[in-house]
């Protein structure tokens, strides 16, 4: 066994739970049964994450197909009908079957461990939430083969991930594609709300002794804000799907313009969900950064109270910016101005967070292990993504660039450059805790650099065709537009990212069997999950922890200089 990169001080050995996990010598069927019926938050978390990673590969392949079709002008590799399904499914999959599950999965796994609890507040609700989300994904993908659609070649949704009415009404979408979309999202929404309720009950009611709200790890704070937002945000989506289904099957007129219904109402209701949804996706990325950056800078997070306030502020303000997706729909100038200003306002608490992360790194002793590489890239990329977002918030600018590749470049900069990069960082950071093995550091660095180069090649360049006028969701373009060369660079970058992800997949599988043993605390970190064995036993903690500061393990390892003396 190789020595871990940071040796654990001997003083910790005595209090860290060293109970080895029960070696399960069951048959394959018994093991599968154990996972299927489990209510253990750790297993459910791992199932969420694995499920999300599989769908990430699927949605990634959909993206690669899109990039292949757009490589040449006037290409006919993929028909326009299939192209519509590809970008709809790519978006819907990435948001609902990758983003939400992986983030809720990490939350499920980490929150009870970080607050010193035995499990989530409602373990069976937890299992139900996972399985209904899983079912939703399978139902959505069943659409590719189920039923007869317009062309009889499968009826996957083809109405874009935001499915504007009245395109989705019976008159214009006669097949079942929209129904698969609506029903899958209702089911997935129920799962998300269940998990949100669970997280809030766990955080408020199950913290260990001494862990006041202001001693919780910032990850737990951010997941609390996320859960509150999920409660308020997912219900409008469910309402949308219900209204759409009533229109499609019961003859309702919610979005039936002939009867006086309004297409704009769909846009408002959907984006009242859709905008906070992307903040729900990004706040966990902030949560990971709050845990990882301090550990690899060997400094406590700068400005904990300000970080809490900023996170709550972002949560609130993000509920009031939704119509910046609707600047071209003919709102009044007062409406346009209001949403421009509210969108700019959200930059303030976000900026506070970025400055605090920088202040954490400043003066620290930085260790550039793979998690930190991804976290530093996140800082740069999230900043740029935020800046293009501010550009888009200016409604006259938006009128030129709405529905162009500039918008796609902006939101992928956040989704990939910030969120996916932090997900990768979190995977490298917590994989040792979940499996007991370190991921290979050399492969990790290959993954990082390939991902960085591929990401920037694709999404930096993608702003240019947007500025040159290339619209979204077109399946091909004329040769004399001057967009071809940019599309080709973007597509090459996509291929490089695919190779990077392949390296990660290989790393995940190979290290599970051959990785270096991690021990309880491979990173010399400070929060409670690192005081358990890797992987933790089913009961998490042999005895209930008692904490007196924000960094309980620091206090343990440095009894001569505890945080509790200063808090």
């Amino acid at each position: 066994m190789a020595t871990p990169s940071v040796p654990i001080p001997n003083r910790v050995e005595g209090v860290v739970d060293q109970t080895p996990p029960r070696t399960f010598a069951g048959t394959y069927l018994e093991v599968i049964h154990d996972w299927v019926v489990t209510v253990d938050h750790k297993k459910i978390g791992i199932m969420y994450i694995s499920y999300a990673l599989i769908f990430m590969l699927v949605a990634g392949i959909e993206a690669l197909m899109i990039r292949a079709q757009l490589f040449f002008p006037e290409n006919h590799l993929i028909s326009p009908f299939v192209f519509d399904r590809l970008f709809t499914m790519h978006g819907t999959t990435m948001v609902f079957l990758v983003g939400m599950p992986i983030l809720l999965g990490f939350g499920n796994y980490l929150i009870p461990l970080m607050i010193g609890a035995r499990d989530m507040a409602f373990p069976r609700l937890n299992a139900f939430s996972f399985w209904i989300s899983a079912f939703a994904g399978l139902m959505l993908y069943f659409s590719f083969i189920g039923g007869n659609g317009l062309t009889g070649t499968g009826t996957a949704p083809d109405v874009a991930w935001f499915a504007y009415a009245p395109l989705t009404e019976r008159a214009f979408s006669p097949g079942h594609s929209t129904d698969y979309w609506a029903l899958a999202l209702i089911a997935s929404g129920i799962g998300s709300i269940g998990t949100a309720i669970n997280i809030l009950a766990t955080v408020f009611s199950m913290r260990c002794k001494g862990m006041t709200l202001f001693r919780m790890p910032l990850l737990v704070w951010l997941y609390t804000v996320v859960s509150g937002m999920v409660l308020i945000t997912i219900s409008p989506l469910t309402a949308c799907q219900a209204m759409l289904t009533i229109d499609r099957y019961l003859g309702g007129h919610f979005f039936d313009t002939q009867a006086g219904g309004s297409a704009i109402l769909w846009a408002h209701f959907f984006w009242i969900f859709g905008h906070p949804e992307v903040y729900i996706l990004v706040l966990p990325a902030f949560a990971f950064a709050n845990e990882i950056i301090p550990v690899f800078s060997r400094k406590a997070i700068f400005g904990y109270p300000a970080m809490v306030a900023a996170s709550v502020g972002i949560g609130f303000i993000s509920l009031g910016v939704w119509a910046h997706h609707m600047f071209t729909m003919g709102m009044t100038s007062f409406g346009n101005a209001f949403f421009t200003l509210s969108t700019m306002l959200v930059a303030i608490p976000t900026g506070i967070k970025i400055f605090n992360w920088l202040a954490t790194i400043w003066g620290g002793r930085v260790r550039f292990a793979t998690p930190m590489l991804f976290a530093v890239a996140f800082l740069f990329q999230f900043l740029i993504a935020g800046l293009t977002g501010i550009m888009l918030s200016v409604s006259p600018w938006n009128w030129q660039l709405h529905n162009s590749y500039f918008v796609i470049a902006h939101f992928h900069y956040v989704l990939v450059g910030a969120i996916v990069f932090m997900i990768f960082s979190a995977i490298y950071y917590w994989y040792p805790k979940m499996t007991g093995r370190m991921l290979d550091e050399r492969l990790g660095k290959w993954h990082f650099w390939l991902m960085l180069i591929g990401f920037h090649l694709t999404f930096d360049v993608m702003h240019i065709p947007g500025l040159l006028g290339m619209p979204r969701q077109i399946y091909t373009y004329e040769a004399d537009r001057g967009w071809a060369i940019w599309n080709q660079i973007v597509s090459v970058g996509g291929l490089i990212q695919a190779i990077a992800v392949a390296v990660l997949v290989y790393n995940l599988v190979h290290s599970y069997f051959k990785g270096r043993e991690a021990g309880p605390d491979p990173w010399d970190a400070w929060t409670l999950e690192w005081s358990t064995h890797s992987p933790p036993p089913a009961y998490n903690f042999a005895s209930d922890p008692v904490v007196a500061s924000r960094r309980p393990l620091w206090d343990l390892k440095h009894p001569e200089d505890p945080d509790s003396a200063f808090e």
Partner: protein
Amino acid sequence: MGTVPLEHIEHPEAWKLPSRGYVAMSSLIIAESAIFTIFVVAYLYYLGRDVSGPTPREVLELPIFGTVCLLSSSFFIYLAEHAITVGKMGAFTLWWAVTIVLGLIFIIGTGVEWDKLITHDHLTIATNLFGTTFYSLVGLHASHVIIGLIMLLITLVFALTGRLNPTHAERVKVLALYWHFVDAVWVVVFTVVYIVGR
């Protein structure tokens, strides 16, 4: 090994946290309020925009009796909550049953009203905007009442078979909180549909 002190705690008083039942039910109520808000907004937005068909003023009558029953059921369920807290299981069962009866009266009243609207006034969910938004909003509320009634009935069965006792007071109060929420939503729906909308 007892509790592992990572550091001595400076406050030796009891560690009190809110009960998870209340936090969970409050969270559910927040989520449900959000979905009701969307349907209320749709209802208000579409008022007066029908191009054909019956209007609210023409066909809606104030459901006074049903409303009084539903809102008073909140008072009776509160009596039931108090009874189980002080251990009076007989009184609890009585007030709980009264609550269920009042809720049933409300639902039956809604059904009678809808029957009149459909057969007599020819107002269905497909007739016009008013029909769509009315049945969606009132129907959403009614479905929440029905789910509440089912939960209350199950609890009543447990009480009648002697399986319920004062140690379950907390859980019963969490369920009662849901019922109070359903009543509060009716206040909003009633105001929007039958007062503002006409």
